[in-house]
């Protein structure tokens, strides 16, 4: 082939190459001009990333600015399990060694740690639960261990510096930052703040590219919430409840301290309770229930204040008028006083002091009548939530007046057949104490901007309505003071102050709804002081303390009430209004010689001395007593009065008695008894009523009360 043709072919190849290059250039130009906008838009989705900027949650303070909850630094523990590259030495090389050192610091078991640290499926792992959001101190400890591959990621979490303190009021925000209950939940809109955003261009791993910032909207931090609680008073409440819980293990307890003039709650606590810092340890979620607002119960005698106030307001109560106590007949039903037989013909004032049911049936059922009684119950705020700024508030239960049987209306006058919340009781009695105005109870005082100190929202007392007149209020206060000085409330006297109040001992309704459970009581007391110008109101409810008898049950509530009221009055520097100091009632009494007395007289003498009489046998006169004359006993102790010869006695029913009571009983009767189990008697092998003699050995079966439910 000739040279020319070869050259021509080379030129042809060159032309071909040139043409292909022109196509490449065209294609490049096309992508970079025509397709560019669309590609930029598509790629933007890939590059752009929006991060939420989390706001700092507001803190919770008491009325004096004492810190109750705040958001602070925390660390999440991360273990790097695999190296980045060959030279990377910062990873967990010896899982067992690392687990051994971390286990005590994190309070996570070795097993769980080793399991996490030897995972094959991930490059790194967050150590769950125990390693998630640990506090600063734990973080420091981990840092000091200098473990290769263990990394701390800084984050934030909620702290409750006082631990299990006002836990039902505060509630908690969980580690995810979600408000779960209490003030944290009800004030979440203030506390949570507004998240901001941060938009930027990222690389494939999510990091911001150089010059990749698109826009920033800063987060708006949450606001601080100031409560009406007073940390000091709350402390008295917590201490009093702790003390009783330790000694008597009641099923549950509630105590509320309020300023009756403003409706502000100064203290509120329940048992059982929990530590919001470690909410995940809660096994039984019922401990989270704030019984003060979320539990309804039969108030019992404390409810009589409502009936009394209504009767006074309507001019139906005359203190010196007399009536026949003991029982009241309504159709087929008979309502008894709590001691069963009453006190003969007594005045209405005495009736109130002795908490006579019959007195209140006359006042409420006979004189006020159904319509007016219901009207007052509603006016006092029962049947609807008070509106306190706490979540989960209950309405309580009132009977439908159109369907209520007369006897049901009658029992309502003394607090049976009506269900209320503790906070409703506090609001109602506050109205009686403050001169007659129902005020909405409140627990949030103000909302403040933590940066500027500006008060954003201030909660003033909300006066709902006038319920009774000033005069009525004053008269009822005086009557209630006599309950404490001369009636059922003598245990509740406080040195230096006029205390007014009302006791309540309510039998618990049976769980099957049929009547009342024997031996199961809710003890309560509501009282305020000083009587003339009440500064404080304290309501205490104790459900089934493990005590031997009713008298001791009342001592439980009185110990709570007195320690809270006395400490708080002194802390608030309330001037004592009583010049003559009441002598502290003696806590012991001496047993008189009772042998030979008529059984009824002996019984009264024991009661007057402060003991609890227990008559054995149906004889007229006391033949034998236990303990002997001259013996000193703690108040509330039982004095046994035997009225029959031992041989003639019938086997008593031991059910419900404590081991000690049963022992005493048996020794008096001269019965040999064997005990199985411990706690309270639930059964016996010899049926009650059969003759004591010739029955061989008596076996009593006991069971602890806390086990029985």
């Amino acid at each position, binding site marked *: 082939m000739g040279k020319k043709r070869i050259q021509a072919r080379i030129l042809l190849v*060159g032309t071909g190459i040139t043409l292909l*290059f022109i196509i490449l250039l065209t294609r490049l130009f096309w992508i*970079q001009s025509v397709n560019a906008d669309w590609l930029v838009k598509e790629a933007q989705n890939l590059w752009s990333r929006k991060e939420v900027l989390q706001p700092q949650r507001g803190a919770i303070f008491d009325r004096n600015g004492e810190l109750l909850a705040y958001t602070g630094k925390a660390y999440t523990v991360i273990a790097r399990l695999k190296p980045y590259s060959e030279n990377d030495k910062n990873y967990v090389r010896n899982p067992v060694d690392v687990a051994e050192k971390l286990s005590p610091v994190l309070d996570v078991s070795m097993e769980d740690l080793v399991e996490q640290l030897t995972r094959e499926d991930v490059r790194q792992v967050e150590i769950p639960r125990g390693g998630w959001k640990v506090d600063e101190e734990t973080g420091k400890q981990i840092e000091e261990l200098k473990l290769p591959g263990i990394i701390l990621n800084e984050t934030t979490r909620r702290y409750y510096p006082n631990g299990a303190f006002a836990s039902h009021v505060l509630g908690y925000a969980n580690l995810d930052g979600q408000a779960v209950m209490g003030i944290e939940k009800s004030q979440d809109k203030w506390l949570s703040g507004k998240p901001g955003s941060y938009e930027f261009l990222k690389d494939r791993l999510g990091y911001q590219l150089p010059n990749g910032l698109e826009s920033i909207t800063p987060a708006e931090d949450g606001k601080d919430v100031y409560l009406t609680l007073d940390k000091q008073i709350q402390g008295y409440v917590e201490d009093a409840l702790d003390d009783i819980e330790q000694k008597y293990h009641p099923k549950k307890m509630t105590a509320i301290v309020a300023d009756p003039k403003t409706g502000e709650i100064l203290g509120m606590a329940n048992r059982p309770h929990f530590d919001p810092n470690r909410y995940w340890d809660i096994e039984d979620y019922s401990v989270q229930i704030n019984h003060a607002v979320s539990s309804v119960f039969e108030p019992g005698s404390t409810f009589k204040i409502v009936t009394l106030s209504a009767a006074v307001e309507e001019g139906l109560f005359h203190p010196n008028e007399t009536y026949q106590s003991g029982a009241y007949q309504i159709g087929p039903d008979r309502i008894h006083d709590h001691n069963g037989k009453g006190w003969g013909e007594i005045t209405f004032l005495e009736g109130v002091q002795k908490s006579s049911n019959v007195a209140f049936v006359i006042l409420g059922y006979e004189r006020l009548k159904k319509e007016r009684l219901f009207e007052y119950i509603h006016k006092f705020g029962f049947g609807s939530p008070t509106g306190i700024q706490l979540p989960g508030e209950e309405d309580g239960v009132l009977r439908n007046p159109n369907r209520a049987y007369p006897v049901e209306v009658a029992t309502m006058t003394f607090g049976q057949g009506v269900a209320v919340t503790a906070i409703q009781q506090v609001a109602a009695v506050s109205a009686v104490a403050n001169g007659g105005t129902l005020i909405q109870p409140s627990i949030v005082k103000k909302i403040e901007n933590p940066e500027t100190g500006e008060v954003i929202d201030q909660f003033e007392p909300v006066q709902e309505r006038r319920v009774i007149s000033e005069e009525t209020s004053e008269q009822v206060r005086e009557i209630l003071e006599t309950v404490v000085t001369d009636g059922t409330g003598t245990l509740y006297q406080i040195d230096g102050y006029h205390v007014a109040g009302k006791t309540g001992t309510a039998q618990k309704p049976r769980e099957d709804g049929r009547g009342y459970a024997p031996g199961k009581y809710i003890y309560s007391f509501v009282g305020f002081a000083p009587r003339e110008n009440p500064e404080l109101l304290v309501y205490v409810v104790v459900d089934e303390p493990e005590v031997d008898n009713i008298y001791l049950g009342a001592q439980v509530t009185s110990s709570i009430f007195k320690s809270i009221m006395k400490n708080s009055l002194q802390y608030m520097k309330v001037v004592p209004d009583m010049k003559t100091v009441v002598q502290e009632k003696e806590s012991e009494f001496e047993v008189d010689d009772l042998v030979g007395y008529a059984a009824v007289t002996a019984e009264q003498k024991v009661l007057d001395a402060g003991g609890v009489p227990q008559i054995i046998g149906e004889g007229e006169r006391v033949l034998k007593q236990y303990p002997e004359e001259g013996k000193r006993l703690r108040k509330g102790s039982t004095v046994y009065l035997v009225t029959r010869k031992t041989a003639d006695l019938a086997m008593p029913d031991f059910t419900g008695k404590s081991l000690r009571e049963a022992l005493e009983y048996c020794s008096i009767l001269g019965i040999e008894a064997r005990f199985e189990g411990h706690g309270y008697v639930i059964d016996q092998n010899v049926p009650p009523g059969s003759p004591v003699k010739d029955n061989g050995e008596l076996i009593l079966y006991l069971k602890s009360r806390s086990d029985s439910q």
Partner: protein
Amino acid sequence: MPKARSTPDLIMILCTLLLLSIGIIMVYSSSAVISYHEHDGDYYYFTKRQMVFAVLGLFAMYVTMNIDYWVWKKWAGIGLLIAVALLVLVLLIGKEVNGAKSWLGIGSFGIQPAEFSKLAMAIFLARWLSENQKKIVTFSRGLMPALGIVGGVFGLIMLQPDLGTGAVLVGTSLVMIYITGARIGHLMALGLAGLIGFAGLILSAPYRIQRIVAFLDPWQDPQGAGYQLIQSLYAIGPGGFMGLGLGMSRQKFNYLPEPYNDFIFSILAEELGFLGGSTVLLLFLLLLWRGMRAAITAPDLFGSLLATGIVGMIALQVIINIGVVTGMFPVTGITLPFLSYGGSSLTLMLTGVGILLNITRYSR
């Protein structure tokens, strides 16, 4: 035949040096981030190595520029034998990277025998064709032996497998055969057979089918087969006419895998825009034109064929590489001459240019 040699083609030298410089800058720009992460905070890991390769390559170019090109005739046979031996060796003891056995490792450096075989084949064919020019018009005694040799080497390369390099080798060889004077009819028939064979190869390996489908519509499988192309287009498109500015690429931040390698042109087009991209293409075109001129003005057929072979090799690699990153061809691993990171590719290309430059010294 030998006559006094003149100065080599200065325009060609200039184009080469410009492309090489742009290449080093772009290797740095595109590799710095990845280098930092993968090599303990060293931004310059790839750049330093590329500069060593460039120095080695320039040295090789200087040497070959001063070796009279016909000397290669003597070494053509041995050269091809060595190339074949290395290709066999790489199949036996080669290092497998990304599913292909292409590397012979020597310490931290590795060489790719397939790159070497392209040049060896060009030299061998130039000699064989120039000595058998008359036979090339015949099918059995001319075309078949030539194609037999080419096919054998191609087969070895496809065993790795490395379709891109194989395609460049075959394409270059066909251009040389065509220049020598093969009949158009023969070549057309061969082209048809080649296409069928090529289709067969594609259908035999599922990943190649995926790549074909991916190049037709990359958004069908954006996280899989279409990933690289989409990422490449996300680089080139937003670059626009002026580019984002040198160093301002976003796609090099782990979006585009190994952006300093086969896809270096995407990053260049992203940072320097159409302006930069077209400049590089035109520099290549100028270099190729000067190569064509050398082929036309070479004093003998061996020189013409050798020049055409080297020019065809460079041209095909540029066309295929840029065709791939702009979505005109399915993704095949092939480097962009002078720009892509890689020692074997760069030194071999510069050696080729050195030979080409020597030919220009004898142009009439």
